[in-house]
């Protein structure tokens, strides 16, 4: 990653290009920190674990889980408000959190796999 901007800068023959690229990168990072509601957070299922295991979103946010394991997994709310079908490798499941609250969930096939979505205004 650190070599890429330098390469681009040289290729385009100027310091301006490098600065523009860095600026673009920084503004991208800033945007993701300040306005999470505009994103669709992704949660990866890898090696029988949810990553990130805990996230905070605003109401109305759609969250997408993707299974990267060779073993099927499910997403099930602890209170059963949402439940995915079994997700094989590369299958995705999405759920939109409409209201505030703390939503614990787990994989019904491997109940030691747990995660939580905090929904806050």
């Amino acid at each position, binding site marked *: 990653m650190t070599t890429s901007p330098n390469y681009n800068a040289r290729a385009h023959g100027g310091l301006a290009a490098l600065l523009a690229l860095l600026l673009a990168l920084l503004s991208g990072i800033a945007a993701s920190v300040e306005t999470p509601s505009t994103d669709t957070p992704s949660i990866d299922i890898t090696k029988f674990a949810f990553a990130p295991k805990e996230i905070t979103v605003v109401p109305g946010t759609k969250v997408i889980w993707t299974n990267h394991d060779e073993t099927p997994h499910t997403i*099930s709310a602890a209170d059963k408000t949402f439940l995915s079908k079994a997700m094989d490798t590369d299958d995705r499941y999405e759920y939109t959190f409409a209201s505030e609250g703390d939503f614990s969930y787990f994989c019904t096939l491997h109940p030691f796999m747990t995660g939580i979505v905090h929904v806050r205004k």
Partner: protein
Amino acid sequence: MTASNDSKPDSPADPTRRKALNCLAAWSGAAVVWTMVGGVPRALGATGSGPVAAASARAFTFVQISDTHFGFHKDANPDIVGGFRRAAADINALAQKPALVLHTGDVTHLSKPEEFGQAKELLQEIRIDRVHTVPGEHDALDDGLTGYLKNFDHDGKSRAWYSFDQGGVHFIGLSNVLNFKMGTMTSLGDEQIAWLKQDLARVSHSTPIVMLAHIPMWTVYAQWGWGTADADQALALLRPYGSVTVLNGHIHQVLQKVEGNIALHTAMSLAYPLPTPGQEGIGEPGPVKVPAGELGKLIGTRQLTVVRGKHELALVDTPIDHT
């Protein structure tokens, strides 16, 4: 195979039942010891001191297979069907013809109708009249046990637990793949334990018991959910019996535990190996990819033999690669 509704194994008119009762005379009532013997079935004659060598033509023999995961086609085993067929050929070639085949669950990988269909067809390649199964959690995806029971409703009662008598042994199949709760191990549930109590009420304490359940009936490794939370309630009902053998699958490897008269055994898969609990460098119970040529040593079948007149019963685990 007994994958239909027409089986009435409990009928007193069933000749196997009469045979079972006659067979009881051969049991002394002493504890039956199950012996783990390495090697392959055709080495039976060579292991002079092994109990299997003592098996006579009258011995009651059956086979356990497990975790076939029909429908799985990933790197850990791209040829599930080929491996199964080699195992079936081994079973068909056994000198002592098994009376039945027990499948301890995860028949399919994703509970798809076509996977259950393929399973039924392939299981018929084992030339044994009766194949009994219990469901694994992979057989209970999305629609619970609906798809499984369409194909493997052994006593026509639309539930995944049942019992039958054969060869002097009382066989019990249980389901521990429907009650998964967050952060805990699976369980059998009160309804099934109540049924078990009722079922055992008619079985004498001198009758050998063989119990099947997919997930281990003892806590092998709680961190990976390798155990059954209320297994102790079921095992308590079995303590008065002189010989109890619990056969499990799920963890794709051979482990055993002996607790008084109760011996618990897990079996190899016929699909792919899983890591040993706490195996260095592996933090999760996913399929283990092994170098080419190694897989056949890590998947396989099990033969169990009841030797009449002997206290010892024999158990032989055979990988599909054996020369």
